[in-house]
């Protein structure tokens, strides 16, 4: 019986070693893959800031338009309030 436990113990120690090594290897490989992917695709994040520069002019135009719309709405509200006093 003692001998039997000894052999299972050896097997368990073996599993401990093999298991930990393979967990580390697998997740380590995943780290490499994530880093690679981030290099290939993740360029998006900094790129999005550089995209902003050309779009700023469009935003300015949009702001002008927004101002006109706001002015029109406030005029209408004002008119409405005047009429319903």
């Amino acid at each position, binding site marked *: 019986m003692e001998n039997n436990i000894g052999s299972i113990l050896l097997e368990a120690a073996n*599993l401990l070693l093999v*298991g930990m090594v393979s*967990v580390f290897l697998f997740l380590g490989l*995943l780290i490499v*893959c994530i880093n690679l992917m*981030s290099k290939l695709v993740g360029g998006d*994040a900094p790129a999005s800031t550089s995209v902003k520069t050309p779009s700023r002019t469009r935003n300015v135009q949009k702001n002008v338009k927004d101002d006109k719309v706001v002015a029109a709405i406030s005029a209408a509200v004002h008119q409405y309030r005047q009429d319903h006093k």
Partner: protein
Amino acid sequence: MEGLNILWESTGLANFQWAQIVMMLVGLGLLYLAISKKFEPLLLLPIGFGAVLTNIPVAGLAEPGGLLYYTYQIGIGSGIFPLLIFMGVGAMTDFGALIANPKMLLLGAAAQTGIFATLFGAILLNFIPGFDFTLADASAIAIIGGADGPTAIFLASKLAPDLLGAIAVAAYSYMALVPIIQPPIMKALTNEKERKIVMEQLRPVSAKEKMIFPLMVLMGTILFLPAATPLVGMFCLGNLMRECGVVDRLSKTAQNELINIVTIFLGLSVGSKLSAEEFLTVETLGILALGAVAFAIGTACGVLMAKLMSKLSGGKINPLIGAAGVSAVPMAARVVNKVGLEANPHNFLLMHAMGPNVAGVLGSAVAAGILLALVAPPL
């Protein structure tokens, strides 16, 4: 008079065995923990009630022909319920923190030491008379250290179905006890200065990266560890549904309705394994003890690994986040945050701890796959 006698023979009172009463008390104890103490109530409540139902004399709910017998066979015997839960967990998990800082995967790997060290410990217990764990039993017990309920149930249903009740109860109890078990270990292994380390803010992660990630994990598993593909595959399916943005309805179902329905039946089926002859053994005590050891070793190894990484990075990593490497999402990350706040009230570690936390989920699924590949199931 004879009629009365027959009626008496069919009552619960006449048929109770003391072991059944004890198991009903265990079930009521679980209900108490779930309702009054709020210990993982979503699972402990159905498990506790299942334990009560199973031990009703005469009714035979857990015997062939009974409701619980079938839910167990269909859901757990086949391994389907834990996998469906895993899909839901995948749909709930945001890998952003991990993709932003992939090194955190090392912490998720380190915390799995608890699993393999406990495997060794379970075999050592065989020296004590009354214990007779095979390698398959020991593996199923050890996975409790992964602090991941569905993974533990999945592995136990494959490797040691007769220990499933005790393993599931131990796994979920220790997940509920994370806030009590972890902080003393975390504090013992770190000093005040290390706990105060403030970490850099994580970079934003693009939607495209989040979408590719589950597919990449799946590819890796297919190539190197096919035994883990049931768990990892369902997990990645849920995660892809979440991140791709075109099947919001499916993603919502996976993380709400479906996971809730499955949880009810999973709990009841696990409860049905809490029958007197299978639970009232010395081995159950051993499993409960080993589970706690597994958990403690996992936490300690995670913290030690984080400490090493902190040293190597020149003090940019707070070693506390290593404790989140055991999965138990998101409880472990919250505990890290809380201990960090105690040392420095302006230091919020939650997002940083989510990285190792989700890495822990992957890590324990991978560890389960390795055990499945290396340990032969009982014949």
